[in-house]
């Protein structure tokens, strides 16, 4: 039975070839639209470069691969006899070098040459002149705190946590008195490094600044630091990127990047802990 049926079905080959050609073209056309949120940080330029490099390389391979696939479907579809049966083991090994070399260059090359410097800097030590912000994440809010005039953060203890004192700031520690706590609103000066100290009091969260290209999980029991340099003033959203419960989708905060003077003024005006 099979023979007639198999030959009858060759007609699908050419439409499929055309679809295979259209797919990468459509993907590239849609991909050319600027999808990334506008960039607003220094290290973010490196992340964007990495993304663009991969988009170009992967896009090119996608186009080439699909063009080849479509070509073969078009040319060999329904051909009554095999025109090329099999390669020799040596030829097969030789051809394997194409994917080996391509992937070594594109994938490992990209990681080492473009990615590693950005990664290393992002996770490296923060500059000494950085503004330090302490963040305690909870379901479903960001508790933000500045050290105040003395530049020292007051002690916190889980035993002191309550609805009025969500981070458990210890009033018996003199350093805590001038701390500036706020919920969900973070000020940062533009073009000055910001050092963010991240802790969580209940479940995992992830501190996500889409425009600044910052994403860092916040893990209960750990204090994790990230740093970055905001390069644009304005209001930017803070989102949570790690599932943290039913309010995950609305765990929204606001990052307000202002000039250095404006930042100092705000710190003067914001109420302190005591």
């Amino acid at each position, binding site marked *: 039975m*099979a023979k007639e049926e198999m030959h009858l079905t060759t007609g699908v080959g050419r439409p499929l070839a055309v679809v295979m050609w259209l797919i990468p073209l459509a993907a590239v056309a849609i991909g050319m639209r600027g999808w990334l949120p506008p960039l607003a940080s220094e290290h973010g330029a490196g992340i964007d470069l990495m993304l663009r490099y991969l988009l170009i390389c992967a896009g090119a391979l996608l186009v080439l691969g699909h063009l080849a696939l479509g070509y073969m479907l078009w040319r060999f579809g329904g051909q009554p006899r095999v025109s090329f049966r099999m390669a020799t083991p040596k030829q097969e090994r030789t051809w394997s070098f194409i994917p080996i070399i391509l992937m070594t260059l594109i994938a490992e090359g990209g990681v080492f040459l473009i990615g590693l410097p950005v990664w290393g800097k992002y996770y490296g030590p923060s500059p000494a002149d950085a503004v330090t912000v302490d963040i305690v994440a909870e379901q479903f809010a960001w508790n933000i705190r500045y050290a105040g005039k003395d530049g020292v953060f007051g002690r916190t203890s*889980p035993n002191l946590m309550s609805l009025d004192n969500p981070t458990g700031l210890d009033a018996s520690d003199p350093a805590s008195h001038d701390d500036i706590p706020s919920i969900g609103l973070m000020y940062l000066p533009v073009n000055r490094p910001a050092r963010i100290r991240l802790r969580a009091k209940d479940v995992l969260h992830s501190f996500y600044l889409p425009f600044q290209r910052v994403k860092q999980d916040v893990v209960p029991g750990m204090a994790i630091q990230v740093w970055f340099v905001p390069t644009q003033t304005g209001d930017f959203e803070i989102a949570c990127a790690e*599932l943290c419960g039913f309010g995950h989708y609305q765990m929204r905060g606001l990052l307000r990047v202002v000039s250095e003077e404006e930042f100092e003024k705000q710190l003067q005006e914001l109420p302190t802990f005591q």
Partner: protein
Amino acid sequence: MSDAHLSEVVHEPQSFIRRYIFSQDHKVIGLQYFLTAVFVSLVAGGLAMLIRMQLAWPTATWPLLQKVFPDGFSGGIMKPEFYLSIVTMHGTLMVFFVISYALLGGFGNYLIPLQIGARDMAYPFLNMLSYWVALLATVVMLGSFYVEGGAAAAGWTSYPPLSAVPEAVPGSAMGQTLWLLGMALFIVSFTMGGLNYFVTILNLRARGMSWMRLPLTIWSLFLATVIGLLAFPPLTAAAIMLLMDRHGGTSFYLPAGLFFGKKLLAHQGGTPLLWQHLFWFLGHPEVYVLILPPLGMTFDVLAAFTRKPVFGYRMTVYSFWTIGALSMIVWGHHMYVSGMSPYIGEFFSVGTLLITIPSAIIGFNLLASLWGGSLRFTTPMLFALGVLALFGLGGFGGLFLGTPTSDIFLHDTYFVVGHFHYMIGGVTLFGMFAGLYFWYPKFFGRMMNETLGKIHFWLTFVPFYFVFLWMHFLGLGGMPRRYYAFNEYQFLSALAGQNLYISIAAFILGAAQLLFLFNFLWGIWKGRKASENPWEATSLEWTAPSPPPHGNWPGRTPTVHRWAYEYGVEAGDRDYLPQSAAGRSASA
């Protein structure tokens, strides 16, 4: 491989229960796995439709659904915690209870003895036990929808503390406990099945079936089994530890100072990252357990419908081995931004990107297998070509996520959702369909309808790209995954509306699968009768009757004289030689 085994008299059980219910025949067990997977896929697919419904119309009310899910849709609106439950269960059910069951339990059971020329598995009783434990795991998992608080809601990865503390989310009550029990049972079942597949391939190959004569389907199943046996059991330990944290007061995953509502928890000394390591130690190899078999099957389907040997058989086998080895040491790429040391992150990224090399060789070999072939576009061939296309796009997406620098931005966005749906959603799905359409005549002795099959292909292929390719772009736009709605954020306002179009395509994709279901069921009774070898294929299963009797071959088991890809040769009026044909062949 003794003579006694070759010609042993096979006693076929006569009672209905021993034959079809508590059967020890690998073919019946394989079909039991398939049926279970089909049933669970209806549930998990339905959950996917609910997810897409919510994302398309986040503020709509659904009075009708309120009648079906009085708790989940109280007031007619889907509750966020219910949304998280269905997201969690969609992922869990699809990965473990549909794809694993169909690929390893279904194809593994059905094809391994038939393709290596054995009468059955090495341990038929263990095989039966494996299925019944799998069914128990399924019942426990599905049952969790009906307990207080609903099904687990901490994501298919079940990261603690969300999954450890009942106060954290409603699904973390009894639902999470059942989730953990279900997973532990799943692993018990997989270990029994996997051990069986491993021993069977090792010991029960027919005379002459040397390793390099095995069809690539068997190679892929063999390596999938090895990976699974090494990587899965640690999660059993992890699940028990999490159960003890939940019910026994231990603190494996819980540090000091956890504060919920108004209560400070007494736990101290643990870390949530331990779970992430243990979970991904299973979780990442798991994706290779799932993706190797469809790739192996695709090679075999391509060979039959290009009428020529696959390109680079040896290189493909070596690539399978390399992927298998590397898959065990790359789990950390799921944790680049978890707070893990950035130095370790760099190690994991180098390993992860090494995997692109054998993967690219496999992709290249699939593509090159078409060169010069006499292509026949049957339904299984179309799905096999679909695998090829999806594997390419999905693989390139992996570059973005395996590179830690770009992953900082893309982690936990829709780019990830798009990517893994291409790989463990798409390659596996298309591979399963290629395999089911291909081996259906062997399973049931009848053919599926080709026209319906082709319509099914087009209605799956095109919407699939629409849904999951688009998700990659949403991810580039920064859209986070596992959000109940996107109306809280300004930066997502431009993207949120696109979910409607994705959802419509997803509904088409979902509905098209009913076509397959109809075709599948209709064919069992009404399909055209199939001959022993309707596709003129070479591997041993096609020398057995369709469907094969108990013991697979009525007489002696076959002796193997050649590899599985003797296509495109002069052999009388045929262009192929079965593996069991004696004598030398001449190239056409």
